[in-house]
């Protein structure tokens, strides 16, 4: 009648990390992230068009910092969003589709604990993905184009001393704003047993939000759309930072993250697990 001595809590973060890290989807996502800067370097070496003025792409080959900012900008709009939906949203429905979810639950892993482990590991993976993309493209850019600090296409330059903390800010803002996509995928993943439905559903939501964002009649109502402020991180690279959009974007993202994560917990608590 003695209770089993526990060494750790059920489904520790480490155990969950072990379940996710060895998956192909994790491996290939990071391979893709690692290859992306090299692909961009290759593309720049092929094309020989006249440089235009006023956009990031013109200055992308100027140096390490510009290349990293350009790579981040082109990835953030879609690639990172899909990866966030994948890392946070797919881990629960994947377990359901492998029929391992019920075995985790009877192990027993309490339901809130299960969700927390999956959420923490998923979001940490997003953070690692974003920071490794920025770091890796800084390195790739430095090797191919030299170690110049940042020149803003709209004018102004930032030295490394100033740029360093700002790049940290960029990574932090991107992670925070991607969390809302992850949270939407997470919430959908609680409802469905199909990983594709969770990831695809979250991407759909952001696409619809982007479409609504094009409709001017909606005016400032559009500010509340998920991912409306997804490019606000570029403000961090101006000589003088305007924090307005950054603050709004952060607050909205926190709002949506809390809302959908909370909803996910509430739904999963009373769900009949039939998968």
């Amino acid at each position: 009648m003695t209770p089993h001595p526990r060494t750790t809590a059920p489904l520790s973060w480490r155990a969950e990390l072990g379940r996710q890290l060895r998956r192909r989807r994790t491996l290939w996502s990071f391979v893709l992230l690692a290859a992306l800067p090299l692909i961009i370097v290759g593309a720049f070496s092929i094309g020989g068009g006249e440089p235009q003025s006023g956009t990031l792409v013109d200055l992308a080959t100027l140096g390490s910092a510009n290349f990293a900012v350009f790579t981040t900008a082109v990835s953030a709009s879609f690639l990172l969003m899909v990866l966030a939906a994948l890392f946070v949203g797919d881990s629960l429905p994947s377990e359901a589709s492998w029929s391992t979810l019920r075995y985790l639950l009877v192990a027993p892993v309490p339901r809130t604990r299960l969700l927390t482990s999956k959420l923490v590991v998923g979001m940490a993976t997003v953070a690692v993905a974003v920071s490794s993309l920025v770091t890796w493209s800084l390195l790739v850019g430095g090797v191919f184009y030299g170690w110049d600090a940042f020149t803003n296409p709209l004018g102004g330059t930032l030295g490394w001393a100033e740029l360093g903390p700002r790049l940290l800010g960029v990574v932090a803002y991107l992670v925070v704003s991607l969390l809302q996509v992850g949270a939407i995928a997470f919430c959908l993943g609680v409802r469905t047993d199909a990983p594709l439905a969770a990831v695809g559903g979250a991407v759909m939501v952001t696409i619809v939000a982007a479409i609504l964002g094009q409709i001017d009649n909606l005016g400032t109502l559009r500010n509340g759309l998920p991912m409306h402020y997804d490019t606000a991180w570029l403000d961090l690279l101006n000589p003088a930072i305007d924090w307005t959009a950054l603050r709004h974007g952060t607050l909205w993202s926190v709002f949506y993250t809390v809302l959908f994560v909370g909803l996910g917990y509430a739904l999963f608590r009373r769900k009949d697990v039939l998968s």
Partner: protein
Amino acid sequence: MRAPGARGPAPAPPAPRGGARPPPGVSLEVTSRGTASTLSLRLWPVTGGKPTLTRQGVAPVSGATTPGEPTQVEVALPGASWRVEAGSSLRVLVTSTDQTYAGPRAARADLVRLADLRLPGVEASALPGSGGGSLDAESLGVLAGIGVLALVLPGSALLRRRRRQQTPVRDDLSTVPLVVDHLVKTYSDGHRAVDDVSWRAGRGQVVGLLGPNGAGKTTTLRMVMGLISPDSGTVHVLGQQVSAGSPVLARVGALIEGPGFLPHLTGRQNLEAYWAATGRDDDEAGYDDVLQVAALGGAVDRPVRTYSQGMRQRLGIAQAMLGLPEVLVLDEPTNGLDPPQIAGLRPILDRYAAAGRTVVVSSHLLSEVELTCSHVVVMHAGRVITTGTVAELVDSADTTVVALAPGTTGVPALAAALRAVPGITQVEVDEDPGGPRLVLTAQVARADVVRAVAETGADIVGVSSRRQLEEVFLGVIAAASGGTSDGDPTSLTERLRQVRSR
């Protein structure tokens, strides 16, 4: 004259108050000897006496001139943003050539005079909150939303936790491994899968949960494991009520509706990943023992996605046995196993229960249950029809099974004659290919029953008290579904063959 370098959208100057103001730029008066002139203008912000060239700071200008006559040239400031620190200045440099642009080859002399210089200025006030100081309406609104969520969500979680802590512990059941009490479950589509199901499993027992497909066996086991919540009724494991994720489930091992594994891991890694998820000590797992049960040989180090169904099934049973739980729940454990493997499973379960643990096996394979289990719970259409030991069910005192010689004819007439014998209440005919059998239910002693059969002149080749579990099963189900067991047997079988209507 036009300024090809001054391209791109120049920032619209703020609407000036009191009269139009020309855009920021420079006016030059050019007097040339030629009929055309090309000049380059460069803008150098000078900070602390040190000039820096900015991008977009070079503008080539070309146009026709009348020799000897001054021509006015307007060059707008290109659209860009620079930080101009206090105390610094802007320097405009006019040159006749520039390394970036090709100039005319004809020799000429130009006289350039500055006519007008218009510096950029902004007639506007700073945006509210742009410095990060005061909060605007949008920020406040979203903050309020987050605040509401932060209050509602943890509040409901606290309420839930308090409710869970109040679940009573039944001390009177603390020695019973598994008690299922008046379980009811109706799915959202209105299908009542389990309807008032009660049974219990004791120490050392191998309990067979028996019933046709759709009888509610798996639904019951899902409620036992806390995977789905019952509409009413309770499950107690060793006196502690089971709900989703109850800690007491650590003392239950389960295989429910087929095994489930991470396909990219090997069999061994799967067992380790599962055990890691329980958070319990590695020493408790007993990997070697359960791998012996799985009997996968070298395949245990291959990824599970390469496994056959039988291999997965065996690994699933092994996973359920990890840590040797006091209650082992196996749902259809023989699925996908071949006869030798099924035969091999039997002593494993016997040994498991003999150590004082409890095994619950659900199955629709009656002969299998008969051989494996000590107790059975028969379910049909969501209800428990009968419970008891296997011996009690198949070996009832009032039943006699008489085997007749193969080729015996006129068996129905024989049965009719026997029904007329006083004391014999029921006669069933079982047309077995190996010879017809009569199953007689009587209120008199077995010897009298056998004598009565012999007196009809039938060739008796065997007498037994034991029926096949299948007959018992069909009989109790027929009785429960309102039919009689001596009715047309094909119609009963046919009825049971149909998928249970929803």
